[in-house]
């Protein structure tokens, strides 16, 4: 086995993960259904509802769980036969808690570095460096039990980075974080690629947050590939304005939504309804906002909200032919935007 000696870095690798008809069946469910996808180096998001097969995919990519059918390669290595070599070059941050509370972050990460094969001195140096890079300072000498969720997530990230992998697999790294903690973690993930030069595959059930962080987004649902495209494509399709207005107090039977839709459509805008009282107006340019404002004012109703809105996954796929669409209800429920 290729264990001893420094592993040469494979710069110029064009794909970090490639799967071909990857299928994983459990006795009751099919977790992955003929998934074929190429993941480029960079920050790639893997989006799907809970149970969409994200964690199963990560387990297969780490060479820990054999695929029922199909194949996958990570960093050019076959997951079925070269699991050990893959795990030496890949870092993994699990979704769940994995930190013992009674040891310090330093002790824990040093231990994990040694588990990755780093000699004791190198393990200590890399631990100090890595903890600093993820933003843990004096507190790294205190027991992990007293850390905030955000700090724990940083320790989990540090243990995935400590052996300087070529690729890290981050499973729901923003889980349980408050909005500011979320933003910090996403910025950190961005830096893992931009500053550290490590490719990232990050999973989330929220498309919105991955759009901001990732170069490329892969969407899976029910173990199937729904879409794989660059974030720019997603954003292009998602410039929407959500508008909600009040009824006329004097005349409750008057359908303000319909009246507004008619006015906006007459103004050359595409308007859809999101099922409730919110109208989704496609943003054609800066004057779209003015058009909406004027239309609302002319109708004499109150404007409850007017905000930029990212598409929900379900809306993204309404462009596709009917037979290829995911079940709308399910997708909407599955991917609520943050």
């Amino acid at each position, binding site marked *: 086995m290729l*264990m001893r000696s420094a*592993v040469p870095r494979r710069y110029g690798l064009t794909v970090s993960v490639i799967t071909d008809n990857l299928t994983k069946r459990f006795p009751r469910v099919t977790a992955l259904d003929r998934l074929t996808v190429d993941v480029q180096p960079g920050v790639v998001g893997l989006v799907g509802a809970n149970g969409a097969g994200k964690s199963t995919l990560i387990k297969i990519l780490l060479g820990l769980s054999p695929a029922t059918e199909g194949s996958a390669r990570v960093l050019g290595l076959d997951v079925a036969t070269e699991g050990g070599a893959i795990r*030496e070059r890949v870092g993994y941050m699990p979704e769940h808690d*994995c930190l013992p509370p*009674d040891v310090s972050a330093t002790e824990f990460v040093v231990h994990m570095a040694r588990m990755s094969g780093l000699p004791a001195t190198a393990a200590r140096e890399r631990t100090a460096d890595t903890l*600093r890079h993820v*933003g843990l300072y004096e507190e790294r000498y205190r027991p992990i039990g007293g850390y905030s969720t955000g700090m724990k997530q940083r320790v989990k990230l540090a243990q995935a980075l400590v052996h300087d992998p070529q690729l890290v697999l981050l499973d729901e790294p923003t889980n349980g974080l408050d909005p500011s903690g979320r933003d910090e973690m996403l910025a950190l993930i961005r830096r893992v690629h931009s500053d550290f030069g490590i490719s990232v595959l990050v999973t989330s059930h929220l498309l919105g947050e991955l759009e901001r962080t990732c170069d490329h987004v892969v969407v899976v649902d029910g173990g199937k590939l729904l879409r794989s495209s660059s974030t720019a494509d997603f954003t292009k399709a998602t410039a929407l304005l959500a508008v909600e207005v009040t009824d006329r107090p004097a005349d409750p039977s008057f359908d303000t939504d319909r009246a507004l839709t008619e006015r906006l459509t007459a103004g050359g805008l595409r308007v859809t309804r999101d099922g409730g009282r919110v109208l989704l107006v496609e943003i054609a340019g800066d004057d779209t906002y003015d058009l909406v404002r004027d239309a609302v004012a002319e109708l004499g109703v109150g404007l409850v909200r007017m905000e930029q809105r990212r598409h929900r996954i379900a809306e993204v796929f309404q462009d596709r032919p009917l037979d290829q669409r995911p079940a709308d209800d399910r997708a909407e429920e599955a991917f609520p935007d943050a």
Partner: protein
Amino acid sequence: MPEPMPEPMSQPMPGPMPGPMPGPVPAAPVADVIHDIGYRHYQGPRLGRGYATRSLYTLTLRGSFGLGRSIRSKILPMGLLALMCVPALIIVAVAVYLKSAKLPLEYERYLMIMDFVIAVFVASQAPVALSRDLRFMTVPLYFSRPITAGDYVRAKFGAMFTAMFVLTGLPLLIMWIGSLLASMSFGYNLEHFCYGLVAAALYSLLYSSIATVIASATPRRGFGVAGIIMVLLISAGISSVLYFVINGHDNSAAAYWANVISPSGLVDSSVTWMFGLPTTGAVGVPSALGGCVFVAEIAAVSAAAYGLLVQRYRKI
């Protein structure tokens, strides 16, 4: 709860950074600000599975005696180790003082008497070695690295065995050194010291096997401790009751079969039989066949336990 940390570059830290800082340093840094030296890739050696397994073994072995852990975690294992050794020291001191030609207690006999301490040690420390990783779900982190389930079990089981062997072997070593200091018969003491070490090894093997399987079944340390104590002590209790019932009935060697359900009885009886030592109380084998059965049982239970452990961790 501490506030979330600001970006590293703006984080002041009292005192200088430890260690050398090669690499680019931004111009005109303030004295007490961490220099952003950028990310450095690791170019050094990666020592692979064998090294990782050995590291895990060492860490677990040290942890079994509370080394590298909090003071509170040291109290119980170190206390039990002291409890194992102090009587040996007293025996040696008395023997040296009285200038006796023979230790008042044989080596293997010493372990039989200290059986309870050995059981408490393994019950308290096997869950430390295994349940913690399960409870805090650290196991998947190990398996996301080159080591396999087999390596993990080898390291943990090996560490538990070694810790037990240190616990049981150390007092015997004290007694043997004492016998040398008191100029007792060298040959006799060496021979019986070796018998004692065989008994220590068998205790370590059988107790570690039973304890690690139970500890690996539960993430709750308390359940692990209680389960191990119950299996070790209750089985020994039932066995001794059975022995006295059968022995009282027809006073035959068949009563020794009761040892088949007692871990300590199995080890003591096997050692007595293998080396032809004098039997005492319930310790003894029903026949030569019985002796073989006892030894085979120890081997089979240990092998089965090891196999179960590997199976259990393969599934994670």
